[in-house]
């Protein structure tokens, strides 16, 4: 049996948890022949009915008033109690912040290894897996000891697909909630007031790096972005120098973007940055150094000074 943790927030299932179910279905054999989706929370009926479209073999619902808000320790404690009765071969979650956190708590409590950002479970019985390192720039083949196998599955490894099939059996599971699991309390939420075109939804993203040279230097990127309804981001060099806020970083420790076109200006193409923009359909590199490694990862290249080229493009667009 596979226990797959379903993440949800205020009634909405995380798209990554639906991907997780699709991935879990591809693994089915031997002692992992059943995929059970696990929903933890309070008043989660809507979530379970939505989940049925993705046809897990079963849904386990763990409900309690105190589980209304996310608590990594309480979620881990609930999964551990469930695992004691179900004896699963694998417990998995999506490799989101929450997924990694819950599975690490389980690993720590049960003294078991946990593989974060798992790309592939090569052999469930032998516990041989491939996981991502350096934000997917490198793969690591590893064997884990102990049972159950604890893994978080890297995002976008599988597509979420609705499946027709037998209606899953929905069962309620009662857990004993430990006061200690609530040592960390969620006390509030703040909605983001971020206006303008966001990096994660824009069709065109224009990124700036060392070559931009200063905060003011970003004006030419912003002017072009206005013209084509794009968003502006930058490399870690740009955010670490305070030229743009960290929330605009594209890279390993910032945003992972997937626009139709990414225009990288004055960025050499370090791994830290490439990881953040490899989801882009097309990449255009503008750099005054013809030897910049980024050109080898690009679809289009322009050699020259971004401070001259970007205004020229903006002007050309205005002519059209």
């Amino acid at each position, binding site marked *: 049996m596979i226990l797959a943790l379903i993440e949800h*927030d205020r009634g909405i299932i995380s798209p990554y948890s639906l991907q997780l179910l699709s991935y879990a279905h591809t693994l089915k054999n031997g002692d992992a022949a059943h995929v059970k989706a696990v929903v933890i929370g309070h008043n989660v009926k809507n979530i379970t009915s939505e989940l049925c479209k993705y046809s897990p073999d079963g849904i386990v619902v763990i409900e309690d008033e105190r589980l209304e808000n996310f608590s990594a320790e309480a979620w881990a404690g609930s999964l551990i109690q469930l695992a004691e009765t179900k004896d699963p071969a694998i417990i998995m979650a999506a490799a989101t912040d929450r997924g990694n956190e819950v599975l690490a708590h389980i690993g720590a409590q049960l003294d078991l290894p946990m593989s*974060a950002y798992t790309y592939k479970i090569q052999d469930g019985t032998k516990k041989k897996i491939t996981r991502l390192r350096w934000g997917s720039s490198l793969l690591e083949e590893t064997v884990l000891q102990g049972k159950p196998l604890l893994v978080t599955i890297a995002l976008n490894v599988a597509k979420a697909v609705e499946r027709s099939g037998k209606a899953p059996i929905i069962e309620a599971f009662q857990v004993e909630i430990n006061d200690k699991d609530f040592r960390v309390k969620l006390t509030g939420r703040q909605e983001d007031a971020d206006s303008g075109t966001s990096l994660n939804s824009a069709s065109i993203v224009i990124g700036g790096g060392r070559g931009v040279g200063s905060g003011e230097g970003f004006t030419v990127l912003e002017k072009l972005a206005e013209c084509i309804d794009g968003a502006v981001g930058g490399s870690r060099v740009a955010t670490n120098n305070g030229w743009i806020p960290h929330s605009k970083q594209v890279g390993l420790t910032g945003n992972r973007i997937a626009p139709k076109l990414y225009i990288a200006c004055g960025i050499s193409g*370090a791994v830290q940055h490439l990881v953040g923009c490899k989801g882009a359909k097309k990449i255009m590199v503008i750099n005054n150094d013809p030897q910049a490694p980024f050109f080898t990862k690009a*679809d289009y290249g322009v050699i020259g000074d971004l401070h001259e080229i970007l205004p020229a493009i903006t002007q050309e667009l205005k002519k059209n």
Partner: protein
Amino acid sequence: MNILVCIKRVPDVGSKFYLTEDGQAIDTTNLGFTISPHEECAVEEAISIIEKTGGHATVLTLGPAEAEEQLKDSLARGMTDAILLESDQPEWDPRQTAQAIIEAVKSEEAKNEPFDLIMFGSESADSGNAQIGIRVAHGLDRPIICGLKNLTVTDSKIIGKRDIPNGMEVYETTLPAVVTIKEGINLPRYPSFRGRIKAKKKEIFRLSPDQISRQMEMIQLQHPDEQKKEVEMLGEGISAAPEVVNIFKQLKLLK
């Protein structure tokens, strides 16, 4: 306030990875080393806390003798003490690393004052196991809040904020506690010249950690399959502008 920050020495990779022949590690022959980005921010956060509250901020790492370089760098920024858990063994698995840190914390706390706050980066740049902090928190039986982009410390508690889609969540817990930090919480300072001189004279406390048995056995590292791209050069300088706009049109990006 007495703070411990755990960091990791990682290769400062450029644009491409080269692996050793046996596939067991990144070939670092021509590479420099640095601190993982999230941990650099944890160091900055610890320094800015003790600048207000006074006290000690100790930096700790598990690694080879050369990791002294990263400890000295943290001292130069303003950390007050440094501990090196020295080991020639590469690739400690997360449980082994956590256990070594737990033992070091226990022995430090038995000798000196207890740590009010233990800080980690949310994950290391190289192995990205995302679990050491949580394992240490369990081993020491302390609460942990992960992935913080904002931290407020009072005498008895901490308030931490972390990202969720479209906003932030606010969490609270009591001290002593463990936190993991994400880049973006602050803008790390560069070490000053005076700081570097001071750091040079500071002694690093060395320990030989015991390695418990391994639960994750790495077989090898590999490069992922990658599509070879053929770059289409659009020209040089401003004369390339019309061609760039043509590409926008081809890709149907203009309204």
